[in-house]
């Protein structure tokens, strides 16, 4: 069986490399495998860790899989008792449950025969573990720590901002691609000009404008400042320039208004470019951090990214919750990546933007 597979692999490799394998080929595969480990490993570790119970998360050295210590309910004891594998003085090995630990001595009992108590030095026992996914890491923050609300805020910002961006950017792109008018070059220079001014340079005055509109601590203060994107205008304009003009002329002959030419002809034909911009906008908005950090100061309006940051900055970091919520934050993006990767890579290759 394995011989067959090796044979198959060899023939595939041979077909690819009709000549001999060069040392660079060996190096390439080595590099790629290392790359898989380095790129995927951290995310895999995040996901595995996020399912560990609170005590297992803090354990050092950590176990690879989410394991938790087995416990047992015994009559007469309120709490669940933790189970250990104990080497007794006579050399025999028994499964015992711990009642109480005093210093380096553990008071234990035999679950099968609860009457008999043992006193065991703690280095003579070993935890009994079982595979267990701590789903409470996910459910508790959602229920008790307002994370459902942060999710809603993030979704609201992402969807509304993307819709606004698509509409105003496509209108501007339509104007700059289909028409010839006075001041068109000026408008184009204006749009390029805004590319020169990233948000990091105008943090204070944008905050001033936003607070003049009374949008500090409001999700609209996050949505509006970034709604008009030069990248989006350019991406859509490039695409619209390639549309056949005859169609538009024909529509004009039929007395279609300019708005309905935009809405019924140009926009539907530009769907591929609109889709690329939509995906980009969704990612920008979902991942946005610095600006929301400045505008949103109240817990109720936090987006997921801000909440995660605030949550992990607390005095005692509850890593089991932080990790689980990080996984949830990452999930929509992972989903987009899985299904729409082609769009994204093409978009980056054609615009040089991300």
């Amino acid at each position, binding site marked *: 069986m394995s011989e067959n597979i090796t044979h198959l692999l060899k023939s*595939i490799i041979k077909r*690819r490399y009709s000549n001999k394998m*060069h040392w*660079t080929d060996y190096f*390439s595969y080595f*590099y*790629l495998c290392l*790359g*898989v480990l380095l*790129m995927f490993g*951290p995310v895999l570790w*995040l996901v595995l*860790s996020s399912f560990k119970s609170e005590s297992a998360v803090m354990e050092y*050295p*950590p176990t690879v899989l989410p394991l938790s210590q087995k416990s047992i309910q015994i009559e007469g004891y309120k709490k669940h008792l933790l189970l250990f594998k104990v080497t007794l003085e006579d050399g025999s090995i028994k499964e015992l449950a711990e009642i109480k630990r005093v210093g380096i001595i553990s008071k234990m009992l035999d679950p099968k025969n609860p009457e008999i108590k043992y006193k065991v030095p703690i280095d003579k026992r070993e935890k009994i573990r079982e595979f267990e996914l701590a789903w409470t890491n996910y459910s508790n923050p959602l229920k008790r720590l307002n994370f459902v609300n942060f999710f809603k805020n993030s979704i609201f910002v992402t969807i509304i901002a993307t819709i606004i961006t698509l509409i*105003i950017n496509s*209108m*501007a792109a339509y*104007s*700059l691609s289909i028409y010839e*008018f006075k001041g068109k070059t000026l*408008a184009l220079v204006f*749009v*390029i000009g805004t*590319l*020169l*001014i990233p948000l990091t*340079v*105008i943090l*204070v*005055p*944008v*905050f001033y*404008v936003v607070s003049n509109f009374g949008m500090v601590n409001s999700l609209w203060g996050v949505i*509006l400042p970034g709604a*008009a994107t030069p990248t989006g205008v350019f991406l859509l304009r490039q695409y619209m320039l390639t549309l056949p003009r005859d169609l538009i002329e024909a529509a004009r002959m039929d007395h279609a*208004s*300019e*708005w309905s030419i935009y*809405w019924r002809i140009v926009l539907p034909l530009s769907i591929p470019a609109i889709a690329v911009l939509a995906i980009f906008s969704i*990612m920008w908005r*979902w*991942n946005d*951090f*610095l600006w929301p950090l400045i505008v949103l100061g109240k817990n109720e309006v936090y987006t997921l990214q801000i909440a*995660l*940051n605030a949550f*992990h900055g607390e005095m005692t970091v509850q890593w089991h919750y*932080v*990790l689980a919520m*990080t996984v949830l934050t*990452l999930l929509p*993006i*992972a989903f987009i*990546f899985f299904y729409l990767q082609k769009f994204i*890579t*093409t978009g*980056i*290759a054609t615009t*040089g933007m991300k």
Partner: protein
Amino acid sequence: MMNAIDLLMRPLQKIIGVRRMPYIFLLPNLIFFGLFVIIPLVVNIFFSFTGGTELYISNREFSGLRHYQTLFDCQDYFNPNSCNEDYFWRGIYNTITFVFFQVILMIFFSLLTGVILNKNIIGRGFFRSVFFFPVLLSPVVVGLIWKWILLKNGILNAIIESNGGTAISFLTAPGLAMSSSIFVSIWAHMGFYTLIILAGLQAIPPNLYEAAEMDGTSKERTFWRITFPLLLPNLLVVFVLASIKGVQTFDEIYVLTGGGPGTATSLIVQYIYTTGFAAAGQVQNFGLAAAASMVLGLVLLVLTLIQLYLGRDKESKTQDI
């Protein structure tokens, strides 16, 4: 709803005429640009020349060049300790260190990855996705993932110790924290630059390679004589883009190290953010933050102009990959 808009737009078109309609379509986008880019740019200059703790312009008093003097008040520009605003200068030096190493390593690794992914390898699509996906992760997620791994009692130290080494403070020793930050930043953004390089590699005419092969040219020579020179424009784009992004780095490092230990990894944008918005228990100094923004803006302007110059004939070169 869109029909309702048409009901409004049709009479409008009648009144102003078809020839003025493009302005109407342009208007919403320009209003947004005006409100959130152009006006702020002017206001920023105003802020940088006024003092006080008030946000509202009418309440701010003119202070002339005071903020700029504060920022540049230094006995020795190469020693941040001698500066009045030492945090600002530390930010500048940290940013220079960060960008310098990040950009060099970024070019090296994205070139290496691009060249390897451009080969006729098995599972190419898969490997390309693997290197690309961190680009889409949010900076907060990237910061948290790596903080979790690099912690004093994180998995990496566990692996080191189980192999007989001693635990390393990746995030709490000054020099190491900077190296970790650079590494994490490369990890997160390399896929993007690899993509640009891949696009460049695929634009190189294959017959050049065929000719080289016919002549029996060695692979090393083919790389240095064909691939590298033809890829140089793309490498320049990577260089400038990575510099522009690098200078503005904030989020992932802020989450990873918080700028610490001390100020070892606090970059220039973090200085602006802390000065203007975040310093707990301290006065928010909008004026000083605005002045620092102007300095950052100047650097970025130069870099972006280089980028636009390099990309001036990009439209003719766009291609699908």
